[in-house]
């Protein structure tokens, strides 16, 4: 039984901001299915009475003192950027506004 359709893979790829070729969509639709079937087993034991564990070791309240450290050096970080101008990162035109 197919759980993830090709269209669903395309929708998810959009969410994940990854261009996929047509071949990749076909292949992933098939491969993801195998994995999804395999993990469906998890549902067998994940009953409502079992609490979730998000951290292997339970810790709370890890805080930092509010004391500044020097900034990274702007020239060094911009040197590693695909494009820069006037101390800023250059990014392509943004079509959507948040």
């Amino acid at each position, binding site marked *: 039984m197919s759980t993830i359709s090709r269209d669903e893979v395309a929708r998810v790829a959009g969410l994940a*901001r990854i261009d*996929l070729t047509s071949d990749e969509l076909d292949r992933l639709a098939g*491969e993801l299915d195998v994995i999804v079937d395999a993990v469906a*087993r*998890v549902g067998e034991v994940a009953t409502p009475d079992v609490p979730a564990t998000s951290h292997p070791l339970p810790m709370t309240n*890890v805080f930092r003192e509010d004391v500044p450290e020097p900034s990274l050096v702007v020239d060094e970080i911009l040197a590693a950027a695909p494009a820069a101008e006037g101390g800023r990162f250059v990014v392509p035109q943004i079509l959507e506004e948040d």
Partner: protein
Amino acid sequence: MSATDLTRLTAADLAGRLAAGEVSSVEATQAHLDRIAAVDGAVHAFLHVDAEGALATARDVDARRAAGEDLHALAGVPIAVKDIVVTRGLPTTAGSRILEGWLPPYDATITTRLREAGLPILGKTNMDEFAMGSSTEHSAFGNTHNPWDLDRIPGGSGGGSAAAVAAYEAPLAIGTDTGGSIRQPGAVTGTVGVKPTYGGVSRYGLIALASSLDQAGPVTRTVLDSALLHEVIGGHDPRDSTSIPEPLPALVDAARRGASGDLTGVRVGVVTELGGEGYQAGVRARFEESLELLRGAGAEIVEVSCPHFTYALGAYYLILPSEASSNLAKFDGMRFGLRVEPTDGPATAERVMAATRGAGFGDEVKRRIILGTYALSAGYYDAYYGSAQKVRTLIQRDFAAAFAQADVLVSPTAPTTAFRLGEKLDDPLAMYLNDVATIPANLAGVPGMSVPNGLSDDGLPVGLQILAPAKADDRLYRVGAALETLLEKTWGAPLLSRAPELETA
């Protein structure tokens, strides 16, 4: 002493000779650089070799030693670092095209600690892209070959670090382990690998795969060397919120104590679910023999059951892609790394991001990001990520019950010996099964070690996994060192001495 001999020393031996002034760090470092030049064409353990930087550190250590400075025990012993660890000014790619040529502007905490201790960094080792894989075949920069058989995989994701150590290109290496990426390569290359307790080694500056599972640790040829390295890189780091705010247990002491070979009173638990069907006959045979040795050393062998371990793989393949899909979102071509413009249509930020990620990520990375995005997307969270987190709880409970009966647990590290390159590439699930024995430790956060325990029927190395309760990493070293001593006594030499000599260029 010849250069070749220097590369055959353990890190502990080399450190002793450096401290005694018998050899210099420059000599030791150069010997390893020469070895890399000679064999890495065939092994391809390294993505980047920093001869100049390594020698500069070596010269500095030698000068400080000559000046009578008090140096770290491992000062001057060269090391290889997995390319997932951020190194300032040294290319760091995580095996991905998307980071090709990236020069980080900062050091990981591990890197800082290695530099402070004076370990020359030989270079960065190959790995599956973003540590996703069990064979290093998913590197964007070519396969690494197993020094035992160059047609076979060195394990993964840290195949480069394991192969570098197995091929005597470095006495020490850093690995990272999210589901077995230190231990499984250790098993299939006949080397020692340790995944510390989650939070035992800082994750600051490790390019994150799955934040709640990732842990860095030592890759070495001996248990004592791992303990020495673990003590350099481990301990609390305020830059990692999940770092354990306590001192490490005495690991080197535990390794030295274990090397006596006496395990009187130690309870060793055999996990029913981590063995039997699906494990190669030779793997099972070596495991049984090792149990006999442990019993002979005074250990009490008990059988323990961890019934939920059979759900571990499923939980792992939900948690890992979910966290990875978010961790890898930052690779978008805006601030660093690769930027690719779409082949047609307007080059908007949105489309450039998608084109960059489409071109920059390999198949396995795309596969896992898509799965993780799907698992987290609206309506699926509870059934997928949420359920997987519940399985973590069940696995932790299994561990708690097992550790009530045993001081350590043991199992084969991997179900098989190294398979041939390309053999499982088209079967993701078969590939994932490599990690079936190692994954429970990552889900529960407990420490694990793989120790070489012989050769299988095919003449390839096999590893034994030792697991201990969280924060009791010292138990790994005591039992691991004991087993190592007992095995070497029966073999008459380290296992690696039985590896075929590599042709040198």
